[in-house]
Protein backbone atom coordinates (compact mmCIF):
# COMPACT_ATOMS: atom_id res chain seq x y z
CA UNK A 1 0.00 0.00 0.00
CA UNK A 2 1.34 3.39 -0.93
CA UNK A 3 1.65 6.20 1.59
CA UNK A 4 -1.20 8.50 2.51
CA UNK A 5 -0.31 11.96 1.18
CA UNK A 6 -3.49 13.79 2.11
CA UNK A 7 -5.24 12.99 5.33
CA UNK A 8 -8.47 14.82 6.17
CA UNK A 9 -9.73 14.06 9.67
CA UNK A 10 -13.02 15.04 11.32
CA UNK A 11 -13.39 18.11 9.15
CA UNK A 12 -16.17 20.50 10.10
CA UNK A 13 -16.85 23.58 7.99
CA UNK A 14 -19.70 26.02 8.39
CA UNK A 15 -20.79 28.94 6.25
CA UNK A 16 -22.66 31.65 8.15
CA UNK A 17 -24.09 29.28 10.70
CA UNK A 18 -24.89 26.44 8.29
CA UNK A 19 -22.75 23.34 8.58
CA UNK A 20 -21.66 22.38 5.07
CA UNK A 21 -19.22 19.65 6.09
CA UNK A 22 -19.94 17.54 9.17
CA UNK A 23 -16.93 15.65 10.37
CA UNK A 24 -15.67 13.94 7.24
CA UNK A 25 -12.44 11.95 7.04
CA UNK A 26 -10.72 11.15 3.77
CA UNK A 27 -7.39 9.50 2.95
CA UNK A 28 -5.70 10.06 -0.38
CA UNK A 29 -2.89 7.67 -1.21
CA UNK A 30 0.12 8.70 -3.23
CA UNK A 31 -0.15 8.20 -6.97
CA UNK A 32 -3.86 7.29 -6.87
CA UNK A 33 -7.00 8.83 -8.30
CA UNK A 34 -9.50 9.33 -5.51
CA UNK A 35 -12.98 10.61 -6.18
CA UNK A 36 -15.55 12.24 -4.00
CA UNK A 37 -19.04 11.91 -5.43
CA UNK A 38 -22.31 13.22 -4.16
CA UNK A 39 -25.17 15.47 -5.11
CA UNK A 40 -25.24 19.25 -5.20
CA UNK A 41 -24.73 20.85 -1.81
CA UNK A 42 -23.26 17.72 -0.25
CA UNK A 43 -20.15 19.66 0.78
CA UNK A 44 -17.73 18.47 -1.90
CA UNK A 45 -16.54 21.88 -3.10
CA UNK A 46 -16.28 23.15 0.46
CA UNK A 47 -13.98 20.25 1.31
CA UNK A 48 -11.64 21.03 -1.58
CA UNK A 49 -11.70 24.76 -0.83
CA UNK A 50 -10.71 23.98 2.75
CA UNK A 51 -7.72 22.00 1.52
CA UNK A 52 -6.73 24.86 -0.83
CA UNK A 53 -6.92 27.38 2.02
CA UNK A 54 -9.80 29.42 0.59
CA UNK A 55 -12.15 28.42 3.40
CA UNK A 56 -11.32 28.29 7.09
CA UNK A 57 -12.69 25.07 8.65
CA UNK A 58 -14.28 25.16 12.10
CA UNK A 59 -12.40 22.12 13.35
CA UNK A 60 -10.57 19.00 12.25
CA UNK A 61 -7.28 18.59 10.49
CA UNK A 62 -5.99 18.48 6.93
CA UNK A 63 -2.52 17.00 6.74
CA UNK A 64 -0.47 16.95 3.58
CA UNK A 65 2.59 14.69 3.96
CA UNK A 66 2.30 15.17 7.70
CA UNK A 67 2.14 18.98 7.47
CA UNK A 68 -1.01 20.66 8.81
CA UNK A 69 -2.58 22.80 6.04
CA UNK A 70 -5.30 24.46 8.09
CA UNK A 71 -4.23 28.02 8.86
CA UNK A 72 -1.81 28.23 5.92
CA UNK A 73 -2.47 30.86 3.25
CA UNK A 74 -3.36 29.61 -0.25
CA UNK A 75 0.09 30.51 -1.62
CA UNK A 76 1.82 28.35 1.04
CA UNK A 77 -0.42 25.44 0.08
CA UNK A 78 0.44 25.84 -3.62
CA UNK A 79 4.12 25.92 -2.66
CA UNK A 80 3.63 22.69 -0.72
CA UNK A 81 2.54 21.05 -3.99
CA UNK A 82 -1.25 21.03 -3.68
CA UNK A 83 -3.28 22.77 -6.39
CA UNK A 84 -7.00 23.16 -7.04
CA UNK A 85 -8.66 23.37 -10.46
CA UNK A 86 -11.77 25.30 -9.43
CA UNK A 87 -15.34 24.58 -10.38
CA UNK A 88 -16.46 26.35 -13.53
CA UNK A 89 -12.87 26.47 -14.87
CA UNK A 90 -12.34 30.08 -13.85
CA UNK A 91 -9.71 30.87 -16.47
CA UNK A 92 -8.79 34.56 -16.55
CA UNK A 93 -10.84 35.72 -19.55
CA UNK A 94 -8.86 38.94 -20.04
CA UNK A 95 -5.52 37.12 -20.20
CA UNK A 96 -4.14 35.20 -23.16
CA UNK A 97 -3.78 31.42 -22.99
CA UNK A 98 -0.07 31.78 -22.40
CA UNK A 99 -0.56 34.42 -19.70
CA UNK A 100 -3.01 32.10 -17.95
CA UNK A 101 -0.36 29.41 -17.93
CA UNK A 102 2.14 31.96 -16.65
CA UNK A 103 -0.20 32.71 -13.76
CA UNK A 104 -0.28 29.01 -12.93
CA UNK A 105 3.48 29.16 -12.38
CA UNK A 106 3.23 32.38 -10.38
CA UNK A 107 5.27 31.15 -7.41
CA UNK A 108 7.98 29.51 -9.48
CA UNK A 109 11.25 31.24 -10.19
CA UNK A 110 12.88 28.61 -12.42
CA UNK A 111 12.74 28.29 -16.20
CA UNK A 112 9.28 27.49 -17.56
CA UNK A 113 10.09 26.56 -21.18
CA UNK A 114 9.82 22.80 -20.61
CA UNK A 115 6.56 23.21 -18.69
CA UNK A 116 4.87 25.20 -21.46
CA UNK A 117 5.95 22.47 -23.87
CA UNK A 118 4.59 19.73 -21.62
CA UNK A 119 1.19 21.45 -21.35
CA UNK A 120 1.06 22.12 -25.11
CA UNK A 121 1.91 18.48 -25.73
CA UNK A 122 -0.99 17.38 -23.53
CA UNK A 123 -3.31 19.95 -25.11
CA UNK A 124 -2.18 20.77 -28.68
CA UNK A 125 -5.28 22.95 -29.04
CA UNK A 126 -3.88 25.36 -26.47
CA UNK A 127 -0.67 25.74 -28.48
CA UNK A 128 -2.73 26.81 -31.50
CA UNK A 129 -4.50 29.39 -29.37
CA UNK A 130 -1.50 30.52 -27.36
CA UNK A 131 -2.08 34.24 -28.05
CA UNK A 132 -5.85 34.18 -27.90
CA UNK A 133 -7.73 35.64 -24.93
CA UNK A 134 -8.94 32.82 -22.70
CA UNK A 135 -12.43 34.32 -22.67
CA UNK A 136 -12.80 33.49 -26.36
CA UNK A 137 -12.11 29.75 -25.92
CA UNK A 138 -14.82 27.09 -25.94
CA UNK A 139 -15.86 25.45 -22.68
CA UNK A 140 -13.75 22.36 -23.33
CA UNK A 141 -10.70 24.41 -24.23
CA UNK A 142 -11.15 26.49 -21.09
CA UNK A 143 -11.23 23.32 -19.00
CA UNK A 144 -8.03 22.15 -20.68
CA UNK A 145 -6.48 25.53 -19.95
CA UNK A 146 -7.58 25.33 -16.31
CA UNK A 147 -5.93 21.92 -15.97
CA UNK A 148 -2.82 23.07 -17.86
CA UNK A 149 -2.62 26.16 -15.67
CA UNK A 150 -2.72 24.00 -12.55
CA UNK A 151 0.04 21.76 -13.95
CA UNK A 152 2.29 24.80 -14.39
CA UNK A 153 2.77 24.95 -10.62
CA UNK A 154 4.39 21.48 -10.76
CA UNK A 155 1.92 19.98 -8.29
CA UNK A 156 2.22 16.65 -6.52
CA UNK A 157 -1.50 16.58 -5.73
CA UNK A 158 -4.07 18.06 -8.09
CA UNK A 159 -7.65 18.58 -6.94
CA UNK A 160 -10.36 19.00 -9.56
CA UNK A 161 -13.79 20.37 -8.86
CA UNK A 162 -16.35 19.10 -11.41
CA UNK A 163 -14.11 19.14 -14.50
CA UNK A 164 -16.91 17.70 -16.66
CA UNK A 165 -19.47 20.36 -15.73
CA UNK A 166 -21.31 21.72 -18.76
CA UNK A 167 -19.14 19.95 -21.33
CA UNK A 168 -20.19 17.82 -24.30
CA UNK A 169 -19.89 14.02 -23.74
CA UNK A 170 -16.96 13.65 -26.15
CA UNK A 171 -15.07 16.45 -24.43
CA UNK A 172 -15.80 14.85 -21.05
CA UNK A 173 -14.12 11.67 -22.29
CA UNK A 174 -11.08 13.71 -23.36
CA UNK A 175 -10.88 15.34 -19.95
CA UNK A 176 -10.99 11.98 -18.16
CA UNK A 177 -8.31 10.62 -20.50
CA UNK A 178 -6.14 13.58 -19.54
CA UNK A 179 -6.78 12.93 -15.85
CA UNK A 180 -5.47 9.40 -16.32
CA UNK A 181 -2.45 10.66 -18.26
CA UNK A 182 -1.58 13.17 -15.57
CA UNK A 183 -1.96 10.49 -12.92
CA UNK A 184 0.33 8.11 -14.82
CA UNK A 185 2.92 10.90 -14.84
CA UNK A 186 2.97 10.56 -11.06
CA UNK A 187 0.52 13.19 -9.89
CA UNK A 188 -2.03 12.21 -7.25
CA UNK A 189 -5.57 13.23 -8.15
CA UNK A 190 -8.49 14.12 -5.90
CA UNK A 191 -11.57 14.45 -8.08
CA UNK A 192 -15.02 15.78 -7.34
CA UNK A 193 -17.76 14.80 -9.75
CA UNK A 194 -21.48 14.79 -10.27
CA UNK A 195 -20.84 12.61 -13.30
CA UNK A 196 -20.50 9.63 -10.97
CA UNK A 197 -20.24 7.02 -13.72
CA UNK A 198 -17.13 8.52 -15.32
CA UNK A 199 -15.61 9.30 -11.94
CA UNK A 200 -16.07 5.80 -10.55
CA UNK A 201 -14.71 4.24 -13.74
CA UNK A 202 -11.59 6.36 -13.52
CA UNK A 203 -10.92 6.36 -9.78
CA UNK A 204 -8.95 3.89 -7.72
CA UNK A 205 -10.91 4.73 -4.63
CA UNK A 206 -14.20 6.52 -4.09
CA UNK A 207 -16.02 8.28 -1.28
CA UNK A 208 -19.70 9.12 -1.34
CA UNK A 209 -20.62 12.33 0.41
CA UNK A 210 -24.22 13.02 1.43
CA UNK A 211 -25.29 16.23 3.19
CA UNK A 212 -21.87 16.80 4.68
CA UNK A 213 -21.12 13.21 5.74
CA UNK A 214 -19.28 10.29 4.17
CA UNK A 215 -21.71 7.41 3.64
CA UNK A 216 -19.65 5.00 1.51
CA UNK A 217 -15.98 4.45 0.91
CA UNK A 218 -14.86 1.71 -1.47
CA UNK A 219 -12.85 0.97 -4.56
CA UNK A 220 -14.20 2.88 -7.51
CA UNK A 221 -15.31 0.00 -9.73
CA UNK A 222 -16.65 -1.84 -6.73
CA UNK A 223 -18.85 1.08 -5.84
CA UNK A 224 -20.01 1.27 -9.43
CA UNK A 225 -21.61 -2.16 -8.99
CA UNK A 226 -23.38 -1.13 -5.81
CA UNK A 227 -27.14 -1.03 -6.22
CA UNK A 228 -27.91 1.84 -3.87
CA UNK A 229 -25.23 3.98 -5.49
CA UNK A 230 -26.58 3.09 -8.92
CA UNK A 231 -30.00 4.26 -7.91
CA UNK A 232 -28.87 7.44 -6.27
CA UNK A 233 -26.22 8.66 -8.68
CA UNK A 234 -26.36 6.72 -11.90
CA UNK A 235 -30.07 6.85 -12.48
CA UNK A 236 -30.47 3.07 -12.90
CA UNK A 237 -33.22 1.13 -11.18
CA UNK A 238 -32.50 -2.16 -9.41
CA UNK A 239 -31.88 -4.91 -11.91
Amino acid at each position, binding site marked *: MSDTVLEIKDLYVSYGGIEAVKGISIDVHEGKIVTLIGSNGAGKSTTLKSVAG*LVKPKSGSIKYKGQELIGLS*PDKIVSAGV*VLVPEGRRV*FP*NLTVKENLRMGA*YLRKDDLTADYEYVYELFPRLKEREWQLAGTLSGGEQQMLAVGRALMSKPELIMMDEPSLGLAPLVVQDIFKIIKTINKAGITVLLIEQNAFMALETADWAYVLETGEITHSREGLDLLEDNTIQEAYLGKSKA
Partner: protein
Amino acid sequence: MEFLTSQILSGISLGGQYALIAIGYTMVYGILRLINFAHGDVFMVAGLLMVYMSTVMPIYVSIPLMIVLTVLLGFVIERAAYKPLRSAPRMSVMISAIGVSYLLQNLALYATGGQPKTYASIPWISNTIHIFGAPTRVVTVVTPILVIILVVLLTLLINHTKIGIAMRAVSKDFETSQLMGVKINSVISATFVIGTFLAAVGSLLYFTNYPTVVPMSGALPGLKAFVAAVFGGIGSIPGAVIGAFIIGICETLIKGTDFAVFSDAFTFALLIIILVVKPTGIFGEKTTDKV
Protein backbone atom coordinates in the same frame (compact mmCIF):
# COMPACT_ATOMS: atom_id res chain seq x y z
CA MET B 1 -3.60 82.36 -33.71
CA GLU B 2 -0.91 82.77 -31.09
CA PHE B 3 -3.63 82.90 -28.47
CA LEU B 4 -5.23 79.71 -29.71
CA THR B 5 -1.86 77.91 -29.86
CA SER B 6 -1.10 78.93 -26.34
CA GLN B 7 -4.59 77.86 -25.17
CA ILE B 8 -4.28 74.46 -26.79
CA LEU B 9 -0.79 73.99 -25.39
CA SER B 10 -1.88 74.72 -21.85
CA GLY B 11 -4.96 72.57 -22.39
CA ILE B 12 -2.77 69.61 -23.33
CA SER B 13 -0.58 70.29 -20.34
CA LEU B 14 -3.51 70.51 -17.93
CA GLY B 15 -4.94 67.35 -19.49
CA GLY B 16 -1.65 65.57 -18.85
CA GLN B 17 -1.76 66.58 -15.21
CA TYR B 18 -5.33 65.30 -14.89
CA ALA B 19 -4.22 62.11 -16.64
CA LEU B 20 -1.60 61.40 -13.98
CA ILE B 21 -4.31 61.64 -11.31
CA ALA B 22 -6.93 59.80 -13.37
CA ILE B 23 -4.72 56.72 -13.80
CA GLY B 24 -4.75 56.24 -10.02
CA TYR B 25 -8.55 56.35 -9.94
CA THR B 26 -8.96 53.97 -12.81
CA MET B 27 -6.36 51.41 -11.63
CA VAL B 28 -7.78 51.23 -8.11
CA TYR B 29 -11.28 50.94 -9.53
CA GLY B 30 -10.13 48.22 -11.91
CA ILE B 31 -8.80 46.06 -9.11
CA LEU B 32 -11.04 46.86 -6.12
CA ARG B 33 -14.17 48.32 -7.79
CA LEU B 34 -13.56 51.21 -5.41
CA ILE B 35 -13.77 54.89 -6.25
CA ASN B 36 -10.95 56.15 -4.09
CA PHE B 37 -12.33 59.55 -3.13
CA ALA B 38 -9.20 60.29 -1.09
CA HIS B 39 -7.01 60.23 -4.21
CA GLY B 40 -7.41 63.96 -4.95
CA ASP B 41 -6.52 64.80 -1.37
CA VAL B 42 -3.39 62.66 -1.50
CA PHE B 43 -2.49 64.82 -4.50
CA MET B 44 -3.02 67.94 -2.35
CA VAL B 45 -0.90 66.48 0.48
CA ALA B 46 1.87 65.87 -2.07
CA GLY B 47 1.68 69.60 -2.86
CA LEU B 48 1.88 70.58 0.82
CA LEU B 49 4.76 68.20 1.51
CA MET B 50 6.68 69.92 -1.26
CA VAL B 51 5.84 73.36 0.17
CA TYR B 52 7.18 72.47 3.60
CA MET B 53 10.17 70.44 2.50
CA SER B 54 11.43 72.87 -0.10
CA THR B 55 11.90 75.53 2.62
CA VAL B 56 14.28 73.37 4.61
CA MET B 57 16.13 71.33 1.99
CA PRO B 58 17.30 71.73 -1.58
CA ILE B 59 14.84 71.03 -4.41
CA TYR B 60 16.70 67.99 -5.72
CA VAL B 61 16.31 66.35 -2.28
CA SER B 62 12.75 67.45 -1.59
CA ILE B 63 11.34 66.23 -4.92
CA PRO B 64 12.30 62.56 -4.51
CA LEU B 65 11.52 62.68 -0.79
CA MET B 66 8.08 64.17 -1.48
CA ILE B 67 7.36 61.39 -3.98
CA VAL B 68 8.48 58.69 -1.52
CA LEU B 69 6.38 60.13 1.33
CA THR B 70 3.30 60.49 -0.89
CA VAL B 71 3.62 56.89 -2.04
CA LEU B 72 3.98 55.83 1.58
CA LEU B 73 0.81 57.77 2.42
CA GLY B 74 -1.10 56.00 -0.35
CA PHE B 75 0.16 52.64 0.91
CA VAL B 76 -0.77 53.39 4.54
CA ILE B 77 -4.26 54.64 3.60
CA GLU B 78 -4.98 51.38 1.77
CA ARG B 79 -3.69 49.21 4.63
CA ALA B 80 -5.45 51.18 7.37
CA ALA B 81 -8.75 52.25 5.82
CA TYR B 82 -9.54 49.82 2.95
CA LYS B 83 -7.84 46.49 3.65
CA PRO B 84 -9.76 45.77 6.88
CA LEU B 85 -12.96 46.19 4.84
CA ARG B 86 -11.97 43.72 2.13
CA SER B 87 -14.94 41.43 2.70
CA ALA B 88 -17.34 44.22 3.73
CA PRO B 89 -19.96 45.54 1.27
CA ARG B 90 -18.44 47.78 -1.37
CA MET B 91 -20.39 50.75 -0.07
CA SER B 92 -18.53 50.58 3.28
CA VAL B 93 -15.18 50.92 1.56
CA MET B 94 -16.47 53.84 -0.48
CA ILE B 95 -17.64 55.60 2.69
CA SER B 96 -14.30 54.88 4.31
CA ALA B 97 -12.66 56.58 1.31
CA ILE B 98 -14.84 59.65 1.80
CA GLY B 99 -13.79 59.63 5.46
CA VAL B 100 -10.10 59.55 4.52
CA SER B 101 -10.71 62.42 2.09
CA TYR B 102 -12.15 64.70 4.78
CA LEU B 103 -9.53 63.57 7.29
CA LEU B 104 -6.72 64.63 4.96
CA GLN B 105 -8.42 67.95 4.19
CA ASN B 106 -8.83 68.69 7.90
CA LEU B 107 -5.29 67.69 8.76
CA ALA B 108 -4.13 70.01 5.99
CA LEU B 109 -6.31 72.79 7.38
CA TYR B 110 -4.72 72.26 10.79
CA ALA B 111 -1.20 72.27 9.34
CA THR B 112 -1.65 75.34 7.16
CA GLY B 113 -3.97 77.29 9.46
CA GLY B 114 -6.08 77.87 6.36
CA GLN B 115 -3.43 80.10 4.78
CA PRO B 116 -2.63 79.48 1.10
CA LYS B 117 0.93 78.17 0.87
CA THR B 118 3.16 79.23 -1.99
CA TYR B 119 4.58 76.36 -3.98
CA ALA B 120 8.32 76.18 -4.52
CA SER B 121 9.49 77.50 -7.86
CA ILE B 122 11.13 74.52 -9.46
CA PRO B 123 14.08 75.53 -11.64
CA TRP B 124 14.00 74.93 -15.38
CA ILE B 125 10.36 73.80 -15.69
CA SER B 126 9.22 77.24 -14.45
CA ASN B 127 11.19 79.04 -17.19
CA THR B 128 9.37 80.80 -20.03
CA ILE B 129 9.85 79.66 -23.62
CA HIS B 130 8.18 80.45 -26.96
CA ILE B 131 6.39 77.78 -28.97
CA PHE B 132 5.21 78.90 -32.45
CA GLY B 133 5.57 82.44 -31.16
CA ALA B 134 3.34 81.82 -28.16
CA PRO B 135 4.95 82.41 -24.78
CA THR B 136 4.57 79.53 -22.34
CA ARG B 137 6.47 77.75 -19.60
CA VAL B 138 8.70 74.75 -19.96
CA VAL B 139 6.33 72.71 -17.78
CA THR B 140 3.62 73.05 -20.44
CA VAL B 141 5.80 71.19 -22.91
CA VAL B 142 7.37 68.81 -20.43
CA THR B 143 4.02 67.57 -19.04
CA PRO B 144 2.62 65.81 -22.13
CA ILE B 145 6.02 64.29 -22.94
CA LEU B 146 6.44 63.00 -19.39
CA VAL B 147 2.87 61.70 -19.35
CA ILE B 148 3.45 59.77 -22.57
CA ILE B 149 6.69 58.27 -21.24
CA LEU B 150 5.07 57.25 -17.94
CA VAL B 151 2.01 55.78 -19.68
CA VAL B 152 4.22 53.75 -22.03
CA LEU B 153 6.23 52.44 -19.06
CA LEU B 154 3.03 51.63 -17.17
CA THR B 155 1.59 49.80 -20.17
CA LEU B 156 4.79 47.75 -20.50
CA LEU B 157 4.61 46.92 -16.80
CA ILE B 158 0.99 45.82 -17.00
CA ASN B 159 1.34 43.85 -20.21
CA HIS B 160 4.68 42.18 -19.81
CA THR B 161 5.73 41.77 -16.20
CA LYS B 162 4.65 39.13 -13.71
CA ILE B 163 3.13 41.70 -11.35
CA GLY B 164 1.31 43.27 -14.31
CA ILE B 165 -0.23 39.96 -15.36
CA ALA B 166 -1.16 39.35 -11.71
CA MET B 167 -2.84 42.77 -11.54
CA ARG B 168 -4.99 41.93 -14.54
CA ALA B 169 -5.80 38.49 -13.12
CA VAL B 170 -6.71 39.89 -9.69
CA SER B 171 -8.92 42.54 -11.30
CA LYS B 172 -11.04 39.73 -12.77
CA ASP B 173 -11.01 37.07 -10.07
CA PHE B 174 -9.64 37.34 -6.51
CA GLU B 175 -10.26 33.75 -5.52
CA THR B 176 -8.71 32.07 -8.54
CA SER B 177 -5.71 34.41 -8.32
CA GLN B 178 -5.21 33.16 -4.76
CA LEU B 179 -5.31 29.59 -6.06
CA MET B 180 -2.35 30.53 -8.30
CA GLY B 181 -0.46 31.60 -5.17
CA VAL B 182 -0.94 35.33 -5.70
CA LYS B 183 -0.93 37.37 -2.50
CA ILE B 184 -3.90 39.62 -3.22
CA ASN B 185 -2.88 42.26 -0.70
CA SER B 186 0.56 42.72 -2.22
CA VAL B 187 -0.96 43.24 -5.66
CA ILE B 188 -3.46 45.76 -4.29
CA SER B 189 -0.68 47.61 -2.46
CA ALA B 190 1.37 47.71 -5.65
CA THR B 191 -1.63 49.27 -7.42
CA PHE B 192 -1.91 52.00 -4.79
CA VAL B 193 1.84 52.61 -4.89
CA ILE B 194 1.76 53.13 -8.67
CA GLY B 195 -1.35 55.32 -8.49
CA THR B 196 0.03 57.61 -5.78
CA PHE B 197 3.43 57.79 -7.46
CA LEU B 198 1.78 59.15 -10.60
CA ALA B 199 -0.35 61.58 -8.55
CA ALA B 200 2.81 62.83 -6.80
CA VAL B 201 4.49 63.50 -10.15
CA GLY B 202 1.26 65.15 -11.31
CA SER B 203 1.23 67.45 -8.28
CA LEU B 204 4.73 68.62 -9.11
CA LEU B 205 3.63 69.70 -12.58
CA TYR B 206 0.21 71.04 -11.56
CA PHE B 207 1.37 73.25 -8.69
CA THR B 208 4.09 74.72 -10.85
CA ASN B 209 1.25 76.23 -12.89
CA TYR B 210 -1.15 76.96 -10.01
CA PRO B 211 1.39 78.01 -7.44
CA THR B 212 -0.61 78.02 -4.19
CA VAL B 213 -1.70 75.02 -2.16
CA VAL B 214 -4.76 75.10 0.10
CA PRO B 215 -6.53 72.17 1.85
CA MET B 216 -9.12 72.10 -0.94
CA SER B 217 -6.51 72.11 -3.73
CA GLY B 218 -7.00 68.41 -4.41
CA ALA B 219 -10.78 68.40 -4.49
CA LEU B 220 -11.49 69.94 -7.88
CA PRO B 221 -8.57 68.46 -9.87
CA GLY B 222 -9.38 65.13 -8.21
CA LEU B 223 -13.01 65.29 -9.25
CA LYS B 224 -12.12 66.32 -12.79
CA ALA B 225 -9.62 63.48 -13.07
CA PHE B 226 -12.36 61.20 -11.83
CA VAL B 227 -14.69 62.50 -14.55
CA ALA B 228 -11.88 61.85 -17.04
CA ALA B 229 -11.62 58.26 -15.81
CA VAL B 230 -15.38 57.76 -16.15
CA PHE B 231 -15.36 59.44 -19.56
CA GLY B 232 -12.64 57.09 -20.81
CA GLY B 233 -14.34 54.08 -19.24
CA ILE B 234 -13.39 53.52 -15.64
CA GLY B 235 -10.96 50.64 -15.25
CA SER B 236 -9.24 51.44 -18.55
CA ILE B 237 -5.86 53.18 -18.45
CA PRO B 238 -5.80 54.44 -22.06
CA GLY B 239 -9.38 55.60 -21.52
CA ALA B 240 -8.41 57.65 -18.47
CA VAL B 241 -5.50 59.28 -20.31
CA ILE B 242 -7.54 60.20 -23.38
CA GLY B 243 -10.46 61.37 -21.22
CA ALA B 244 -8.10 63.56 -19.21
CA PHE B 245 -6.59 65.19 -22.31
CA ILE B 246 -10.04 65.90 -23.75
CA ILE B 247 -11.26 67.45 -20.50
CA GLY B 248 -8.07 69.48 -20.03
CA ILE B 249 -8.22 70.89 -23.56
CA CYS B 250 -11.97 71.66 -23.44
CA GLU B 251 -11.65 73.32 -20.06
CA THR B 252 -8.80 75.58 -21.19
CA LEU B 253 -10.53 76.48 -24.46
CA ILE B 254 -13.72 77.45 -22.62
CA LYS B 255 -11.66 79.55 -20.22
CA GLY B 256 -10.49 81.58 -23.21
CA THR B 257 -14.06 82.53 -24.21
CA ASP B 258 -16.76 84.70 -22.66
CA PHE B 259 -18.08 81.62 -20.91
CA ALA B 260 -14.97 81.19 -18.75
CA VAL B 261 -17.07 80.96 -15.58
CA PHE B 262 -18.68 77.80 -16.88
CA SER B 263 -15.49 75.83 -17.54
CA ASP B 264 -15.93 73.63 -14.44
CA ALA B 265 -19.65 73.27 -15.02
CA PHE B 266 -18.83 71.97 -18.50
CA THR B 267 -16.77 69.11 -17.05
CA PHE B 268 -19.53 68.00 -14.74
CA ALA B 269 -22.23 68.43 -17.36
CA LEU B 270 -20.07 66.12 -19.47
CA LEU B 271 -20.09 63.58 -16.60
CA ILE B 272 -23.89 63.58 -16.52
CA ILE B 273 -24.13 63.23 -20.29
CA ILE B 274 -21.73 60.26 -20.36
CA LEU B 275 -23.54 58.50 -17.55
CA VAL B 276 -26.84 58.96 -19.35
CA VAL B 277 -25.69 58.20 -22.89
CA LYS B 278 -22.78 55.77 -22.54
CA PRO B 279 -22.24 54.75 -18.92
CA THR B 280 -19.29 52.52 -19.79
CA GLY B 281 -17.30 55.42 -21.28
CA ILE B 282 -15.13 55.31 -24.39
CA PHE B 283 -13.14 52.17 -23.61
CA GLY B 284 -15.17 50.70 -20.78
CA GLU B 285 -16.05 47.03 -20.76
CA LYS B 286 -19.67 46.20 -21.30
CA THR B 287 -19.79 44.17 -18.11
CA THR B 288 -18.44 46.87 -15.80
CA ASP B 289 -20.77 48.19 -13.15
CA LYS B 290 -22.11 51.65 -13.71
CA VAL B 291 -20.39 54.25 -11.61
